[in-house]
């Protein structure tokens, strides 16, 4: 396999307690720690391991978003990716727009495989990978917990409700990663230094010839309702009565 492409997203760090903006227009991101979406980190790790095993020649990471996304692209290169592409845009990018931008990148780069996180932890859309595979007309395997190359096919074990399912799909393919696929490595100090010198190409989203206009409109973002206080019941009979009549669960 010549090339693996890994799309990555910059999101609010998973340790940060997310706050809603006062005007309800979205989530507060100013002065908040941002980092690579954890599922995408797993995707980078998977691609780098393919390269280290001699199964892939090159790993290219790509991110769509503001200029600050360079941070996570450098981090991916410190983990072992060979080069990076930033599709720069200050606009809101919804999953369909991202999928279209990535399709344009794939048309140009012609990777054999795209590995991406199954979803981003900010909006939890879980759509871009699937949309990309549909736009490209490639096979797809989502929620991968194991990836094995078998000749010109790839075997993917995926987590489904009742257990595990193993698919054999032909390449080129889009694979999305689940949590248990691997444990991403820490970047080593020498690799952080080397990442600085690896190529990072920036392309304006507007120059990609793709319609990235949002199709969905966010009406309002709000905090989940606070949990109300519980009540102490006198005895089991009262509990049963409440479960039956108020909660209507038995």
């Amino acid at each position: 396999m010549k090339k693996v492409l890994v799309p990555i997203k910059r999101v609010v760090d998973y340790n940060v307690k997310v706050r809603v903006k006062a005007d309800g227009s979205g989530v507060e991101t100013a002065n908040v720690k941002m980092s690579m979406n954890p599922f995408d980190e797993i995707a980078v790790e998977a691609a780098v391991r393919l390269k280290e095993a001699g199964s892939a020649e090159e790993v290219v990471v790509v991110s769509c978003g503001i200029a600050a996304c360079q941070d996570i692209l450098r981090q991916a290169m410190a983990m072992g990716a060979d080069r990076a592409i930033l599709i720069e845009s200050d606009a809101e990018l919804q999953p369909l727009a991202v999928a279209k931008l990535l399709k344009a990148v794939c048309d140009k780069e012609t990777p054999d495989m795209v590995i991406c996180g199954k979803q981003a932890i900010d909006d939890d859309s879980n759509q871009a990978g699937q949309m990309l595979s549909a736009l490209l007309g490639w096979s797809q395997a989502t929620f991968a917990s194991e990836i094995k190359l078998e000749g010109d096919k790839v075997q993917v074990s995926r987590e489904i409700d009742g257990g595990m399912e193993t698919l054999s799909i032909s390449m080129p393919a889009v694979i999305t990663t689940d949590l248990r696929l691997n444990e991403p490595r820490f970047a080593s100090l020498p690799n952080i230094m080397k990442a600085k010198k690896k190529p990072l190409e920036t392309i304006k989203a507007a120059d990609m010839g793709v319609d990235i206009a949002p199709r969905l409109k966010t009406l309002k973002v709000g905090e989940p309702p606070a949990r109300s206080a519980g009540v102490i019941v006198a005895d089991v009979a009262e509990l049963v009565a409440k479960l039956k009549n108020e909660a209507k669960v038995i």
Partner: protein
Amino acid sequence: MSEYVAPMSDIKFVLQELAGLEEISQLPGCEDASLDTAEAILEEAGKFASEVLSPLNRVGDTNGPRWDNGEVTTSPGWKEAYKQFVEGGWNAFSCEPEYGGQGLPKLLATAVMEMWKSANMAFALCPMLTAGAIEALMLSGSDEQKNMYLPKMISGEWTGTMNLTEPNAGSDLAAVRTRAEPQGDGTYKIFGQKIFITYGEHDLTDNIIHLVLARLPDAPEGVKGISLFVVPKFLLNEDGTPGKRNDVHCVSIEHKRGIHGSPTAVLAFGDNGGAIGTLVGELNRGLEYMFIMMNEARFAVGMEGLGISERAYQKATEYARERIQGAEPGVRGGPKVPIIRFPDVRRMLLSIRSQTEAMRALAYTVAAATDRAHCSPDEKVRAENQAFVELMTPVVKGWLTETGIELASAGVQVHGGMGFIEETGAAQYLRDARITTIYEGTTGIQANDLIGRKTARDGGETVKAVLAQMRQTLQEVAACKEPHFARIHKMLEEGINALEAAMAYIVATFKPDIKAASAGAVPYLKLFGIVAGGWLMARASVIAQKKLAAGEGDANFYKAKIATTRFYADHVLAMAPALSRVVTEGAEGVMALEEDWF
């Protein structure tokens, strides 16, 4: 239990705004430390500290290393963590590129060092001692010794130790009795016993390189007769791989108050015919080499005081937000509130926070000066910075560690009874901190260095240069008309005056009445630390005010910096005049009691 999270906002602020990382990264040899690279490094180091080192901190405390027949097994998980540390390239951070180091500046190394110390002080001791041994070999080793040992020590594949102390040679190293007998082939046989050897024996690596102070049979008495030797645990084969076991053995490891995860060894040299070693540098100059290296080691121990304080702050703050107890003062019959609402708890938290920030500001400022002293192309700049570093090293060592113990204790106090319970974790920080004022020269030794070599010897000239810088900041503070600055100005000015008076007293008294000067040495050191910390907090506030006025960055961070400085001025700088009086008026009280009456 909550894990350590690197205080990235303050670390970056101090690095960039206060210590001048950008300027440092333009010095020759420091170019790799550009802001974006520094950020990438800090992020990854922070992750490693939180996810690998921090979870092992309590493991090391409760399940320390075990000694069995000369072999030491480290705590569960430590070997794997050490391997990851080495594979990550962290051990080579600021070492010479010539021998495989990354050559990054001291300033950036200091920020990363803080993270290791906060996350797991007992673990961080291992690379700290290796760094000391590397430094000693770099400065004084022969090319052959450097080629044999440095690449593996810099990568961390082998660790290093410093063998100074003996049962009768502690603060007074002139009393060292370990013997070195020349063999006529360029090697020496070493005989004797060394104690308190940090990581003197362990299972983390397949060789340990001991640096040992010893005397030749015909060496002159006292400090001028001590030489330095390199004695590997395994002698090296022709190809440089570890070969025959050398005659140095771990007799036991100590039971200690804290840093349980760090094996403290008693090492016996030469019980079976003599441990083979080679001389480092020239004969009888061992102590001199040791003291060049010691500045680095003392700075690093100071960083332990900072690291522990930061950790204590995180833990205490988290608890104070969660612990619900009683109604808010002044709200009769009101709902029960978290204890952070009580002024005394706020006072304790702010005491930890403000002094932790002040210590960070001072340590990073000294680290930046070290880089300028090494790398600046301007000889005058190099000399000025070197003088500043030498002056401030005992302050960093002494003040950061003394304060670290106090703050770790305050961290326990915030927890109340739960703080006294080991499972909570706050008590470990206090126990771990306790050693820091003792090893690498006690606070008393630091203070003696400060009043003698660093203050009196040049008639206070270096101190005066620092005082002038402080007064410069005072003017900048005076120019800020926003709330809090008038008060910060008043307290800083009083602090500077107090330090100046104490300095003048030390300079005047040192020669005619050394006992009087020595009696006030430790209070003088604390006074120096408090005022230097206040100076840099004031500088930080002036910068914060400028950022606020320009509408740049995180406004809450800058407002908090000013508010924290205000607290420091009122509660910490306020102590300066009192300490100055102790220095200048306290000697008689120290000397009045007859020795027999003790």
